[in-house]
């Protein structure tokens, strides 16, 4: 088992935004307020247990994005909890891009997916339009060591104990624990591919006009946000770090 020192852990945000130029061609604009909350305390924080940042953006001149959030929480120089989330605004039915990248000395735990905003068994055209474009990247990366060791059918080890979380995923999740240091970087290639596919779809996205469909889509979107914000065990960690009063901003930015 390879052990990675804290100082050598992946600089998640820097790799995606600077080295991979993920948002080239898009003008990111800082999102000062999200759901009635001032986002500035999250832009750079330091407590007795943790330091880091969660930055939230929209795209300049585009009303299609509710938020693009990316950040890192460095926990007692032992672990890095990194996350990236891209959520469309309520007029658009793009899936929610969600990536958790949690690095420890012994492993990276990753979940990467585009979570559908409708029931794809009921709406196969949604899968074809928004999710099937992930097919090649999913097949290429799901065989990385750590993502297949247990061979689980939905490749969902980290979320295994939580049926609600498994039920939220698309047919193309990448999920597991990666130990060797090289593959900790290789899986970031998948993050970039998934994110670029989302951004390409964003450019083409049209507002939803069918009100019945929109109602159905928003019900699932709000339920996704509610479940991840209220039930994800990471929320308890954030409560400990930021306190009962202030943790809400961080949770809502991450998902």
């Amino acid at each position, binding site marked *: 088992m390879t052990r990675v020192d804290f100082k050598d852990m992946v600089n998640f945000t820097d790799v995606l935004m600077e080295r991979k130029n993920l948002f080239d061609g898009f003008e990111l604009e800082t999102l000062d307020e999200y759901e009635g909350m001032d986002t500035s305390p999250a832009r750079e924080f330091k407590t007795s247990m943790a330091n880091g940042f969660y930055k939230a953006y929209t795209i300049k001149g585009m009303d299609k994005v509710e938020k693009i959030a990316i950040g890192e929480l460095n926990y007692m120089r032992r672990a890095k909890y990194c996350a990236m989330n891209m959520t469309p605004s309520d007029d658009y039915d793009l899936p929610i891009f969600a990536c958790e990248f949690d690095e420890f000395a012994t492993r990276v735990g990753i979940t990467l997916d585009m979570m559908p905003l409708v*029931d*794809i*068994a*009921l*709406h*196969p055209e949604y*899968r074809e339009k928004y*999710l*099937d474009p992930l*097919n090649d990247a999913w097949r290429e990366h*799901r065989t990385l060591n750590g993502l*297949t060791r*247990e*061979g*689980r*059918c*939905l*490749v*969902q080890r980290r979320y295994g104990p939580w*049926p*609600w979380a*498994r*039920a*939220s995923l698309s*047919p193309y999740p990448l999920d597991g624990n990666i130990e060797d240091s090289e593959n900790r970087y290789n899986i970031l290639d998948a993050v970039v591919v998934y994110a670029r596919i989302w951004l390409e779809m964003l450019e083409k996205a049209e507002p939803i006009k069918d009100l019945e469909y929109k109602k159905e889509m928003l*019900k*699932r979107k709000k*339920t*996704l946000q509610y479940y991840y914000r209220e039930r994800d065990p990471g929320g308890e960690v954030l409560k400990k770090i930021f306190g009962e009063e202030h943790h809400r901003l961080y949770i809502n930015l991450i998902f």
Partner: protein
Amino acid sequence: MDAFTPYYDKMYSVLEGLSLKALENCNGKDTASLRALSNDDLIAKVCLYSASKISKIAIGGFQIKGQKQFGLCTVFANTGYDLPLFVSYWDENQLKICWMVDIMPTVDDFIDEDYRARYIETQGQAWDRFAKLPGICPEDDNALRSLCSINYSAGQSTIENEGMRLAVLAPHTSYLKAYIEFIPGAEQVTDDGKKKEVSLKTKSLQSTLKTHFRAVLESQIGSSVGSDKTDLLTEVFF
């Protein structure tokens, strides 16, 4: 090939717990011709039943040129019940078995947590137990995988010894037994919105399953039984 896995017989033995009523037609189409599908290249056995609260139980085993075996088993509830769908397929040759079994939700079970707790999460222990079977992996077909519940099992299992065949058959009989245990407690859906949801989703599931398995049946036995019978089999199973 020495002997195929007794897919049909083992699945049928699970169904014997129900009061089965043989069906002679499916959606208005006479199914009698399916009793005589066998020919020089194919040994086929297909049966269609109904049961209390169940509109259709289809089970089939097809041995092709003594080299391959293909099996299917599906269960659909009567209109008005929210019971899930049972789907099992089995594709066996001398070296490998490709398979999938699931209890597919007929509502959006991400939203409807009561449904998920009642019909899907109850399979969690079985899902865990079979997760260690050699060859277990995600269902390869994207469309089919997108219909599956969170607890489906699937694999591409290399046959290293004869015991493997029965080991890989175990999830199919186990999921079918679990499905049958849901039937006595199933009640008519009274909420109009839920009724509509179940109806729409069941139709959508059927449509995707028909498209997928029409192509599978065509590639497995189409040349042996012809296009009309392939269509009829697709109708019978889905």
